[in-house]
């Protein structure tokens, strides 16, 4: 059977995957990060979401969401625009307050867990006047788990200069810059909110490669997107959100075996007929 790590590495290098290949988890882990990875128990939930509800006035944000994320999982948070993906992520991050329910990250409230989470928000969150050098400095200052060498390596791979300011960069370049910083941390949980939203396909591939080659396999990755076809080979599990509720929460393996379709195909089947929309 092809492991997730084999899939990831093969995708990143652009070569096809066959079940006979003998890439070990250790080899991938060795190439993926330079610092010591965390050693979480696979049974302990990294994130526990219970009965989470948040409305915006009369408009529903998310309603009665309950699920757990365990160590080592790559979870796709999928759904059309406005279905509640960003609301859910902000609630997990403690950036929005729930009307009801709770979020626990490794037994702690989100607000005291920021040393455990590397978060990439939907929009760039760095001061546009900063140079890359200054942005890296901020991460060095605040995050003990930040691997500066890895960040510079990624930034060089993305073609970004140390003295370049964020305001002189295109949206795609800013996205790459943010991703390099976020993926250079060594934490149990990565949360990426639409890392490829509004970016051209060539840049999407670079960003995806950046995630795959720098992702710590022992960590949990929650990735929200509506561009499913680009990333579906990454996921261990998918959570489909629809109008603030969980429509489906299954392992990808189980879904493929039962439905015999790609996640993208399933997504279109679930959402498109109702709305007459096409999500590419």
């Amino acid at each position: 059977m092809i492991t997730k790590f084999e899939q990831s590495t093969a995708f990143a290098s652009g070569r096809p995957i066959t079940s006979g290949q003998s890439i070990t988890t250790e080899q991938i882990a060795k190439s993926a990060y330079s610092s010591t990875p965390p050693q979480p128990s696979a049974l302990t939930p990294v994130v526990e979401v219970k009965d989470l509800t948040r409305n915006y006035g009369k408009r529903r944000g998310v309603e009665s969401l309950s699920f757990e994320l365990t160590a080592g999982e790559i979870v796709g948070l999928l759904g059309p625009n406005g279905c509640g993906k960003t609301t859910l992520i902000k609630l997990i991050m403690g950036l929005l307050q729930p009307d009801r329910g709770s979020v626990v990250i490794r037994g702690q409230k989100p607000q005291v867990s920021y040393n455990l989470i590397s978060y990439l928000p939907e929009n760039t969150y760095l001061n546009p006047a900063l140079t890359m050098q200054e942005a890296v400095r901020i991460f060095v200052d605040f995050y003990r788990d930040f691997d500066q060498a890895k960040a510079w390596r990624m930034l060089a791979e993305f073609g970004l200069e140390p003295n370049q300011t964020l305001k002189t960069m295109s949206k795609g370049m800013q996205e790459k810059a943010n991703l390099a910083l976020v993926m250079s941390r060594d934490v149990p949980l990565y949360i990426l909110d639409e890392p490829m939203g509004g970016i051209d396909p060539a840049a999407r591939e670079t960003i995806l490669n950046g995630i795959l080659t720098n992702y710590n396999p022992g960590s949990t990755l929650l990735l929200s997107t509506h561009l499913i076809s680009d990333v579906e080979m990454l996921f261990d599990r998918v959570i489909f959100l629809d109008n603030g509720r969980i429509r489906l929460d299954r392992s990808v393996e189980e879904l493929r075996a039962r439905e015999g379709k790609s996640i993208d195909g399933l997504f279109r089947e679930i959402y498109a007929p109702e709305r007459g929309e096409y999500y590419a």
Partner: protein
Amino acid sequence: MLSKLIKLDLRDYRAKVKWALPIYGLLLLSVLLTKGLSVPYLGGFTYGIAVVATIILLPAALLLSLIHYYRHFYTNQGYLTHTLPVTPGQRYYGKLVGAFLLYFLTSLIAIFGVLILVLAKTLGERTGLAGFGTIIRSVVSWPQQIGLNPVLGWLLVFALWLFIFIYFFATYSFCISSGMSRRLSRFSFGGPIIVYIILYIIQQIIGLLAFLFFPLSLRLSVSLDAINSGSTAVGDVLKTRIVTTMPIRRFHDLGMMGENFGQDLPAETIFANNGYIDIGLGIFLVMLAFIIISFIWTRRRLARIDLR
């Protein structure tokens, strides 16, 4: 971590004002050259601009710290600020100290600017360094000129300078953090403005009540005899002391309440026959109470951030 937060703020401030400082420096230099050498028209023009620039330096610094507070906490940059591994208290006090350092450095620059302006003026008037020294000595000795202890006088100036900053910070942090809270965040920057208007009305009402009814006043007596005899020494003319009396009592005795409330009385009516007036100090206690409430409340708001 607090020091790192302050460093982060100072880095941002530096990025914002890196052009302003050299421009101000050039302006002062041009004042020295044009005003100091008495260049017709141009000297007065650059001097006027430099005076205006120096006057707006401190308000500009306070405004910059307000904008910085809003941007760092409630725009896209808030997603970074609020997910740094620090406590809400550290986030808040980091902003306080960062803004204070900006205020402090701007004050130093403003003082330097004033010195250059005075120097340019005395050079232009051909009184040179001697004239400059005379003006500076006269400014430094202002407490003695009104019969105050110099240490006490300058301590009062320092306290006022500090109070302006703390009160301004407490007000804008309270208004922004309350106005961007869940209930009001749909109004965007209108939320803080709504909070400020409500706060202003409440402060005016409570301030007036505290001014009239709080039993702590500064009693002012003016010696009309000393004025009539031509004395100019403030110490002879004006007597002050702190009393624990409600100011409204004296207003009532003078007939300033009821229909006459808000009407001016002639000084002779107030101060004749060892007369006095009590200035209510309760308003300062209200302001102090607001600063303390603002610090506690705003820190709590930051712990329950709601970025829509």
